[in-house]
């Protein structure tokens, strides 16, 4: 199982899902119509490292974070 956390304004509880790679995560999250709207705008971090593609193998306990558009300052 991997943990998925939704940061900032997405305002959702963390979930745990079974996924071997980020492509599995993509498929799972796209099934939720409310979440789907956020996906185009969100960056993705695996264990707090932002990643730029889906070719990432996941292991149990990994933490995936969705980061919506930012505006500090």
């Amino acid at each position, binding site marked *: 199982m991997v943990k998925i956390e939704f940061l900032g304004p997405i305002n959702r509880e963390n979930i745990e899902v079974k996924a071997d790679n980020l492509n599995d995560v993509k498929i799972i*999250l796209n099934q939720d119509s409310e979440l789907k709207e956020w996906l185009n705008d969100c*960056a*993705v971090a695996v264990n707090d490292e932002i990643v730029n593609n889906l070719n990432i193998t996941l292991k149990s306990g990994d933490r995936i974070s*969705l980061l919506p558009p*930012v*505006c*500090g300052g």
Partner: protein
Amino acid sequence: MLELYRGALNVEEIINKWYQLNNKENYGGIINFIGVVRDENSITGLSFDIYEPILIKWFENWQIKANKLNAKVFMAHSIGDVSLHQSSYIATVASPKRRIALNLIDEFVEDFKANAPIWKYDLIDKKRVYAKDRSHKIKGSGILS
């Protein structure tokens, strides 16, 4: 040095503390950028969420980059609510050289705006409204869509 505070920043205290650190270390040019909450769009203030683990990494990478130029970066930011005319953000660079300090403050503040994991909300009628229109997608966004 990265400092996060609940609520508004105490600008005088932070700026003066960093100045005392920097002038003793033989830096010739010290630049502070102070961000202040403006009275606009009928807001009563702004509010911020921060994801600290990634912010800390982002900041450490900047410190490494600055150190290679014999410079230093400092940053303070608010978490939660900040009222009108109060400060939510201070960025400081210190460098032996004027030109490097001017370049660094510009790049640092712009990269902060584009990539630091901080979310901004307008405070309107005591509610938090995500400032989506003013927000920026982080590099690499959209890979899950």
